[in-house]
């Protein structure tokens, strides 16, 4: 292993994993169950440039059984070492990923990611998209988990519309910014402006 075991690599994990991951999961669950709602999710302190929210999601959900794809500037030595040490997740190309982390521009074309099979739609990738801003404004969302309508900053509404058209197949998405997270499952319809 080329990565030196630095304090940056070894630190930044959960202090109390069972409780912190439980709280983080509830935030992630509510985000995925109510698209458009923005939740605070924290606990991990990953090396730059990964956000607290994306790092906490990885510590909560990824382990040795879930290949992770790092895209763009997330794919740096510091983060490779940190994710490997804390989750033991194998780092893989986009096509093999269960979780993929990066900015939207680095994750495109999104068609590369697993969308599940007709018999097992759950065998699909979950994208963790690092956003410059994350607010409850922008394209209108409807669908399961949304009472009337919601709004959310999306990097590329057309890509998520195409993903929804594949339902019940398709990837699912967490949008992260700082210590905040929002969910965008494949079931969500992205309406026109």
């Amino acid at each position, binding site marked *: 292993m080329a990565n030196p075991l630095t304090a940056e690599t070894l630190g930044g994990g959960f202090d109390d994993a*069972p409780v912190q991951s439980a709280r983080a999961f509830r935030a*992630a669950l509510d985000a995925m169950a109510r698209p458009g709602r923005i939740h605070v999710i924290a606990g991990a302190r990953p090396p730059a440039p990964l956000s607290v929210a994306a790092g906490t999601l990885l510590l909560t959900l990824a382990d040795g059984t879930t290949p992770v794809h790092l895209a763009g500037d997330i794919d740096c030595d510091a983060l490779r070492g940190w994710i490997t040490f804390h989750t033991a997740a194998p780092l893989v190309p986009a096509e093999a990923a269960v979780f993929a982390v990066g900015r939207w521009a680095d994750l495109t074309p999104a068609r590369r990611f697993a969308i599940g099979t007709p018999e*097992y739609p*759950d065998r699909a990738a979950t994208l963790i998209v690092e956003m410059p801003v994350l607010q409850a404004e922008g394209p209108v969302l409807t669908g*399961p988990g949304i009472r009337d309508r919601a709004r959310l900053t999306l990097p590329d509404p057309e890509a998520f519309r195409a993903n929804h058209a594949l339902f019940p197949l398709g990837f699912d998405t967490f949008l992260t910014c700082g210590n905040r997270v929002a969910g965008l499952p494949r*079931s969500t319809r992205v309406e026109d402006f």
Partner: protein
Amino acid sequence: MTEQAYNFAYLDEQTKRMIRRAILKGVAVPGCQVPFASREMPMPYGWGTGGVQVTAACLTPEDRLKVIDQGADDTTNAVSIRSFFRRTAGIAVTEATAEATLIQTRHRIPEHPLTEDQILVYQVPIPEPLRFLEPREPETRKMHSLEEYGLMHVKLYEDIARHGAIATSYDYPVKVEGRYVMDPSPIPKFDNPKLSGCPALQLFGAGREQRIYALPPYTSVVSLDFDDHPFEPGKADHDCDLCGAGDSYLDEVIIDDAGSRMFVCSDTDFCRGRRAAGHVGRLGTPAGAAA
């Protein structure tokens, strides 16, 4: 062995991550059965091992847990699961529906309307609605993938041909968001309308069958029926004999050797709340009076 010898909420972290990933995929594809590596739990299959694992994966120390079995808080299954999580997670428990943040249920939806701040976890014996029509899992998987649900309508039609009405009274199949036919667990069909548009997140866990599925809040859930035989949520044609409620689901209880019977709310918390508020049924005694 002390209680502190267990991890928070009993399960180890690796197992909880696996269950959490399955729950998230279930939420993303409402009504679709997601396989998970169900663990042995310190209780027999049929006692809610699926629901217990989903609850364990969702609990936080801030949660207040309610467990009901056929609507009742005080039956063996409910009492033992509640005490299991009080000991292994150290969380608060309650019998009041409105005070609970997470409710694990066996075969009822509480009468008190649920809110956005609650999660309802169902214990599911047979998650596959098509299982009694087609025993082979690869075939039912294919039927779901092709939306081939004609067989289910044939079953309901045969009910009508034989009995003059759809005789299925619990475990009544539903269609979720116009896509997946789903087994709502053996809740009475009286509860089926509460599945649709519910503000709470609903999670379903089947331990022996190793499946998790979910209904996100405000999901459209339609009970299967025919134009000329529309779905009717049924209940016993009585009022509760203890609290007088005319709109709650009732249990019939034989009370002597002569076959006399009484009807009581299956939801014990709902019935207790009404009696405390001064409602008295046919055989009830006013609140405060000696039992």
